Each structure stands twice: as structure tokens, then as C-alpha cells.
């Protein structure tokens, strides 16, 4: 640990932005969520609780806004003053967008949140000192802080319930930040297996918990670099470019017939999650 080492490696540690000379290779994990297919059933959110050892905080803490759902389903209504929401609700699964130029990463004083070369925004629990700057700087507000020590809190994991905890995921104690990881434990397991076999992870070999449970396949997840992956095809079909802050479809005059978009694109965080706009029939 010398300054040379610091100077040599710093840029490598800190920069995996979508810049031309640093292409993602062989992996860039990304997602596409079809809001037209999403029915808002919450299966993904519960699957996330099961996979990632999320604590159930209980009514009182939920009221204080201390809930820990990495994946939340937002429900929006039409905003014109109709008497009834006669085109239904808009459901919006929201989790960490794994931004390429993540606002959270640069501000962490201890470097507990970093960018990995496979395009994930990592969160290292044991490095976190709980300054919460990352959450303060997150435009999507998808980071969740352990306000209490849930492992020792009554009725969070009482006896036997703790048998359900996933051994591949750390159970977080008080004072650390956490967030959606794209089920990194599954990704890493798949990557390591693939490396051992001298190949890259195949499409469909690894699924996130939310994707796996989604009854309508609204969530697709995969390697954006892999031309065979569904995610790659979807992003391409929607002409959404990871490295751009304004997509082709937004530039077209009079709008386009594409429906892929990323949230708050103009903030230049380059999120890794593309949403597909919800569609409603014009004939009824």
C-alpha cells in the first residue's frame, strides 16, 4: 500500500463509465422492464425479501419510512382530474438502477460503493461507515439504510425464521447502507462457474430473484454485451444506448413509436435499467 499504488490504480478502481476506451467486456449486466407487462403483483418484491435477507421492519418502522424493500412497486394514477382512474394504474418496479456514472459512488468517503467492471454498482457492507451520503445523492432514492440492528431486533428473525436466511448474502447489521445488487451472489456464482469452464455466462443461465418470479416476464435481465441475450435485443430494438444521455427516440420530431426509456436520463447517471412505456388501447 503505497502512494504509487494509489496513483497507478486509482483511475482503474474509480472509472468504469461508459467511455469509449473502456468497453464492457465480457459482461455488462442490465435490465429491461416492460411496464406494459408489469401487473404490480409484488411477487418480485417478496422474492427479493427471500433471496436477499431483507428484514421485515414492522408497522411502526414502516410508518417512519424505515422500510427496507430493495424493490418497491410504485403505483401512479393519471394526473388529469378524472373522476375515476379509467385507464387503470401505472405500476413501476423501482430498484437500484446500477448507474454507470453513479452519483452515489463518487461521494462515499470510504469507497464502500464502487463500480465493477461488469457494470454493477457494488455496495460493500463491511466497508460502509454509514455516512449516508450515497443515499443523499441518489436521484432515485433506492438506497436503504439499516436504522436499527435488525438481526437482534425482536420478531425480525425470531428462532427458526433465521433458518431461512440465505448463506450467500451477508445479513446486515445496524449502520450500513444497502440496496438492490442485481442478485450479485447469483451472478458471481455463475461467472465463476463459467470461468472454470472457459466460457462466458450464457443467456438464461443466471436470473435475478425478481425476474425469476415475475409471472408476466416483465423483467428481463442479462448480459448487455451478449448479442444473444434478450436484454441486448430489447435495448437494441428500442434504440436505447447505454452511453447516451439522450436517446434517438427523444430526438425524433413528433415523437417516435419506440417505448424504451430510462428514468432521469438527463441527469447523466446512465442507468442500467431500461423501462418500456406502458401502453393503453386508444380504441376504447
Amino acid at each position, binding site marked *: *500500500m503505497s502512494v504509487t499504488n494509489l496513483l497507478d490504480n486509482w483511475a482503474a478502481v474509480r472509472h468504469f463509465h461508459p467511455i469509449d476506451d473502456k468497453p464492457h467486456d465480457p459482461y455488462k449486466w442490465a435490465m429491461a422492464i416492460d411496464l406494459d407487462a408489469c401487473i404490480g403483483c409484488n411477487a418480485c418484491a417478496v422474492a427479493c425479501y427471500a433471496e436477499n435477507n431483507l428484514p421485515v421492519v414492522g408497522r411502526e418502522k414502516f410508518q417512519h419510512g424505515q422500510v427496507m424493500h430493495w424493490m418497491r412497486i410504485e403505483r401512479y394514477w393519471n394526473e388529469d382530474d378524472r373522476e375515476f382512474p379509467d385507464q387503470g394504474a401505472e405500476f413501476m418496479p423501482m430498484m437500484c438502477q446500477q448507474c454507470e456514472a453513479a452519483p452515489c459512488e*463518487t461521494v462515499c*468517503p470510504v469507497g464502500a460503493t464502487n463500480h465493477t467492471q461488469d457494470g454493477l454498482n457494488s455496495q460493500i457492507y463491511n466497508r460502509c*461507515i*454509514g455516512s449516508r*451520503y450515497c443515499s443523499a445523492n441518489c436521484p432515485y432514492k433506492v438506497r436503504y*439504510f439499516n436504522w436499527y440492528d435488525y438481526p437482534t431486533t425482536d420478531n425480525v428473525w425470531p428462532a427458526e425464521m433465521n433458518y431461512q436466511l440465505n448463506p450467500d448474502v451477508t445479513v446486515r447489521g445496524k*449502520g450500513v447502507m444497502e440496496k438492490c445488487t442485481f442478485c450479485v451472489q447469483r451472478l458471481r456464482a455463475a461467472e465463476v462457474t463459467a470461468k472454470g469452464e472457459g466460457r462466458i455466462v450464457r443467456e438464461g443461465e443466471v436470473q435475478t430473484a425478481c425476474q425469476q418470479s415475475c409471472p408476466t416476464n416483465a423483467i428481463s435481465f442479462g448480459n448487455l454485451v451478449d448479442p444473444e441475450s434478450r436484454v441486448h435485443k430489447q435495448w437494441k430494438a428500442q434504440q436505447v444506448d447505454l452511453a447516451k444521455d439522450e436517446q434517438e427516440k427523444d430526438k425524433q420530431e413528433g415523437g417516435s413509436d419506440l417505448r424504451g426509456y430510462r428514468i432521469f436520463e438527463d441527469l447523466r447517471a446512465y442507468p442500467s435499467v431500461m423501462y418500456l412505456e406502458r401502453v393503453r388501447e386508444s380504441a376504447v
Partner: protein
Amino acid sequence: MKDIREDIAWAKINQDVMKSLENPRPLYWVILFFAVLTFGIGIGCEVYQYQMGMGVANLDNPHVWGLYIATFIFWIGMSHSGTLLSAILHLMHADWRKPIYRFAEAMTTFSLMTAGLFVMVHLGRLWQFYYAVPYPNERWVWPNFQSPLLWDAMAIFTYLSSSVLFLFVGMIPDLAIARDNMHSGWRKKLYTLLALGWEGTDRQWRNFRVTYLTIACFLIPLAVSVHSIVASDFGMSQQPGWHVTSFPPYFVAGALYSGCAAIITLFIILRYVFKFEDYMTLPILKKIVRLTFAIAMVWTYLNCVEFASVWYSHDAVSKDLLIQKMTGPYAPFWWAMIFCGSIVPLVFAIKRFQTNIPVLFATSLLLNLGMWLERWMIVSPTFSHGYYPWTWDHDQWPSMIQWGIVFGSFGWFTLLFMVFCKMFPSVSMYEVKEMVYHRTLHLKNNGTAVEQTVEQGVH
């Protein structure tokens, strides 16, 4: 009006100041008692928070920062006026600063210490704070040098160490006086130790002047940069209401403002408690009041600049936030901030109030309240009305624990400050003598013969 009486004898100066180390008015003990009490409450709250987790402060996702950060900025800001008085005015040869710069510098040091506590209190895992310190470690990991929070920690630490040095160096001649005035006891030993063998020789004086000047020069850019860095905690982020270019000067102005207001408060208290009426004179108070008024107007101007730039920008989100501050759940506090910060100082423009101690005391407290509210209004509304509408306005109101720690910090500061004033000469004796001497020179030059009744002083 004269800043100080020119007929004041050097021996009397020593006598008066040394008396402050012995028997202050009873009010001193009352203040000290309350300081210990509130500090105790604060400690209790912090221990509870440490045990239970940050949740007891009633912070939430996404409202992750609250009064701790606001009060942290408040204390950092408070520290700036000490430097202004002791260093900037020193370089500008403003003589009137001489009787008051010592306690102002002490205020700088102690408010920085208090601010430093908030960095700790705020951390979710206080026991791991050393991860943020760049030192060679067995983990082979550096902290993140990109983070304004890390700059912040370093800047504060640097500022604190420099301020302590500055305070201490400036005190050496006076410590020697104290040493010589004490006959025995632990205090004598303490002063002897701290006076570093000061004899008042020419050579010592020469070196002293150079050292003092050097530190003063070093301190000024440091002070400005410290608060600019605190401002960049916000300015460097992407959030509406924070991502403002004018934040560094705005923060510095705010810092000087609250610091000056605090100086007025402490001026009045010390003047009474330690019977410093001859040194902390009303004309000096008047000068600080005028200075404060000027800074208040600068702050008001910068406030308007911020509003205007938000208003005329095309940033709908920031604009939204500004409207929300004025009309939303934080509106009472926001308007209170405007009232206390921009309307109340108008009192200072009225000549008759410029030396009216009760009015000034009340006003200075209001100004500080306003400045504290300002920091809160910078921190909190952005959380409850940021980019993402789904997470807005989670009725976040600080819990008693959070308030307890905030009040505890005032107790801690007062405790340190009051103990300092009782332990060390809070009026710089050698500089007051200098001031008196300048005064007589001035009179002489004007051809008014004043009979020198100066008896031989110590130096």
C-alpha cells in the same frame, strides 16, 4: 467614543484580566451548570443512539440526513468569525479587535470541536470511523479521495489543528503573565508549562510576531476553503436545492454571519460575567454590530442570488423545491429563517440600538437561530422534495434523541468555552496594552498632551 480609555494603567489591565481567572460573577456558575446539564443529556442521547442504531433519531429513507448535518454546518460556520477577527482584522491592523479576538479564537476552536463531534454522531457505524482516515493499513484500502465528505473531514481536522495552534501561540505572552502572577498550585505549573519559557525578550517578541503573522496568513485561506468544502458536500451533489454554484461564497458569508452574531452574544455575556466593561467597550460592540450588519446584507444578497438563479434557470425540479420551501411543510421554518436572517438585522441599522445591550443580546440570539434554521432548510427540504416524487415528504420530524444531541452540543460548546475563559485570560493583555499605547500615541500626535500615569508594568 473611544474604543478604550487611554488612561487605563497597564498594571490595571493585568489586574483586571487576571481577576477573571479567579472570581467571576455568580452567573458564570449558573451558565456552567446548565452547560453540564445539557451536555449530559446529549451524552445520554448519543449513548442510546449508539446502542440502538440511528433509527432512534427518527431519520428515514430517503431522509437520511437531518439536524446532525445541519447543526454540523452551523458549528463549522460559527468558527469562522474567530478567524475573521483574529487573523483577517489582524492583518488589516484593526486595533479594536484586540480585546475581543482571544475569546473569538477560542470560540473558533471549540465550535470546530463541536462540529467534529457531529461528524461522529452522524455516522451509522461510529466505531469504524477510522476507515475514512488515509493511513497505511492491513486492508490495503484507501478512502475515496473523490468524496467531498473526505475533503471535509481533512479540512476540518486541518482547520482545527491550525486554530488550536493559533490560539495557543497568541496566548503565550499572556500565559507568561499568568504564570508570573500565580504564586503556587497546579495552575502555576500549567501556565509555566504552557508559557514555554516566555521572557519577553526582544528576540522572543520578534519571533513571536513573525510566527503569529505567518499562522494568521495561513489561516485565512484555510478558513475560506473549509467552508467552501462544506458547501461542496452539497454543491457537488446532484440534488435539487444543493447543486448550486454559488454555495461556497454563500456558505462562507453565512458562516461569518452566524459567527459574528455569536461573538455579539458571547461579548455581552463575558463583559458581564467577567466584569470586562473597561475592555469590551460599547464602541467596540458597535463596530462588531456594524460589521455583522454588513455581512447580514451580503448573506441576504447571496440568498437572493440563489433564488433568482433558480427562478430563471430551466431547472423545474429546483424551482419546484424552492416553491415547496416557501409553501410546504417546512414553510414556517423557512420564513422564520428569512425573518431572522434578513429582517432582524435591520435593527442593527438603527443607531440607538447599536449599543443597546438587551436589544443586541436578543437580536444576536435571533440571528443565530435564523442561521441554524438556514442550515436546516438547506439540508432537509431537499430530502423531502427531491427528484423522486414517490419518496417525497415522509413526515420526518426529528425525534427527541436528535434534539437532545443538538442541545447537548450547545452544552458541550458552552462548557468548553466557559472553562477556557475561567482558565485562561480571555482578553489579550499584551494586545490591549498595545492598543492603549496606540491610543496614546494617536492622542499625542494630535497634540493633546496626556499625562502618562503609566507605572512600570511587567513588560
